[in-house]
């Protein structure tokens, strides 16, 4: 593989990895605050997709994108208020199952409302266009993905470090009871956490679906699985871990896709999951996770 192709793949890996990282962070935020793994997170991606399907072409594209993010954030909050709140305090396994059941419910509802056929999403034309540097062809959407993710990460980190809400979130993630004693309202914190995770999922969805430019009720499954893997491997409570694991996973996928012969393409998944089991054996809390957190 010559340098151009290599660079091409690096761009692919960065782009893919960024999306996984966003999903992973979203899952991590909810896990840190609400102590649960939200299997329905993938559905937020799908919801964003359908929002785009409905709005692209009818409103200016920035509005559509903003709306999609807002809708996912809202949907996440609704999930929390309507369902997760009622199962409070149950063990993490029960919450996982509830979120899994919820994801199936949402998928079925979407199937009923929108039908099972893929709906095309009319992304603005510049998304699918590409430009060339020398012999390298880069798609604008990959550039956008990397740039946006980077921007989001920077602002998220600043938000968590500098703002009051961010501080409250970090405090609750660290030790919820003490935070409560110090005056942090747990309800607000949880709502904020879900809203942020929803927004991140929406954003990830917008970029993920740009590849296929279509959406089905089960579109959210693949990003969820990959993001989930990245979150677990990187450590569920750790922002850095999620990012590194997400990028790593994206890189791994691209590498395997290029290295393995075509007939063995499905093998990529298998190998990735074997790696997961091994990593979990060595470090069940994930590479950057803190020991003692019940994962």
């Amino acid at each position, binding site marked *: 593989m010559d340098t151009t192709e290599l660079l091409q793949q690096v761009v692919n890996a960065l782009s893919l990895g960024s999306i996984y990282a966003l999903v992973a962070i979203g899952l991590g935020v909810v896990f840190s605050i609400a102590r649960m*793994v939200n299997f329905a997170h993938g559905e937020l991606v799908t919801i964003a997709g359908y929002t785009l399907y409905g709005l692209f072409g009818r409103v200016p594209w920035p509005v559509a994108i903003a709306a999609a993010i807002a809708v996912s954030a809202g949907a996440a909050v609704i999930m929390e208020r309507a*369902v997760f709140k*009622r*199962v409070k305090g*149950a*063990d*993490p*396994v*029960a919450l*996982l*199952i*509830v979120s*899994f*059941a*919820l994801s*199936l*419910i949402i*998928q*079925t*509802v979407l*199937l*009923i*409302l929108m039908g099972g056929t893929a709906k095309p999403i009319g992304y603005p034309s510049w998304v699918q266009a590409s430009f060339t540097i020398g012999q390298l062809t880069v798609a604008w959407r990959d550039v956008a993905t990397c740039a946006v993710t980077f921007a989001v990460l920077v602002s998220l980190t600043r938000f968590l470090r500098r703002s009051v809400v961010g501080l409250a979130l970090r405090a609750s993630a660290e030790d919820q009871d003490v935070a409560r004693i110090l005056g942090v309202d747990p309800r607000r914190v949880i709502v904020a956490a879900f809203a942020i995770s929803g927004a991140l999922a929406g954003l990830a969805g917008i970029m993920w679906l740009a590849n296929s430019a279509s959406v089905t009720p089960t579109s959210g499954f693949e990003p969820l699985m990959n993001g*989930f893997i990245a979150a*677990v491997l990187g450590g569920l409570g750790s922002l850095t871990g999620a990012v590194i694991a997400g990028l790593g996973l994206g890189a791994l996928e691209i590498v395997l896709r290029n290295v393995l012969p075509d007939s*063995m393409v*499905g*093998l990529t*998944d*298998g190998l990735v*999951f*074997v790696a*997961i*089991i091994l990593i*979990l*054996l060595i470090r*069940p809390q994930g590479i950057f996770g803190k020991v003692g957190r*019940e*994962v």
Partner: protein
Amino acid sequence: MLVGLLVAVGLIYGGSGSTAERVFILFAINLVIAVGLQSFMGLTGIVSFGHVAFMAIAAYTAGILTSSPLIKESSIADAPAFLRHAELGFLPGTVVAVIFTCVIAAIVGLAIVRLSGTAATISTYALLVIVGVAIVNLPTLTRGNQTFYGIPGSTTLAAAIAFAVAAVVVARLFQDSRWGLLLKASREDQLSAAGSGVDVRRVRFGAWVLSIAIVAAGGSLYAHYVGAISPAAFSLQLTFVIVTMVIIGGRGVSGAMAGAVIVSVINEIMRQFDGQISFGPIETEFASITPLILGAIVIAIMVRRPSGLLGDREIDDLIVPFTAKIGRRFWLAEDSKTEG
């Protein structure tokens, strides 16, 4: 104690007509898998998404061993000769399949039992994916993505009932045994149990292998009922259905039975409504709403009774006090009249 449970199983299988028979056989197969899964999940408290993978391994193994060489000549022509020429009976084939699956389970189990909680659940899901990938990527043995056909339909109603009863008995014996007790202790409080000398890994390993043995038997039963299997059959969807049965019903063997009954009934009801339903402009097949209903029920159960409908109780725990109460009323009526 066991009698109460067996009677319940026996009573249920009273009738049979041809469509009813189909329903019962499917129910029995689901029951075996559910009881198997419950033997692990109920006792360890760990949700496993991976048991269906072992159902698949056993189904393929048994199917390959029992189908006629004539069919295999064309379907899996490149498979090793001893597999192509093999034609075992249903029971020997099942036994071999179960043993083979258990060996794999044992190897994998060494790793799984070292994990707890979410990490374990994720790893079991990983197993499901890995096995699925393995099946697809070994087309010389399994016909890959395509259907592996020609498995003899050895699963009669009698066979299904026998397997179901056996599964229930084995599971029940296991849970009531000392091994089961140690598991329940470690489920409730892992640290204390370990502190009291329970080798948590060892007991979990036992539950893992045993539960998979049961599930494997169910897998062979399934293969010999449908006659043709493919990787798509052993999916996350099926996993969810089985897990739902265990969760809805509760942590005991009776719970798994109750869960299997409820889910099977719901499935059948949804299928009976053949037509479409419509909410205004929206139309859809009634049957595809099933996941929604199951999901809603799971959530409802988790909110109200997180231990499932029956919790830890078994049928005999419920029946004995019940019959005792009736007995008392009946025999002591005279006394209570004079009292009152």
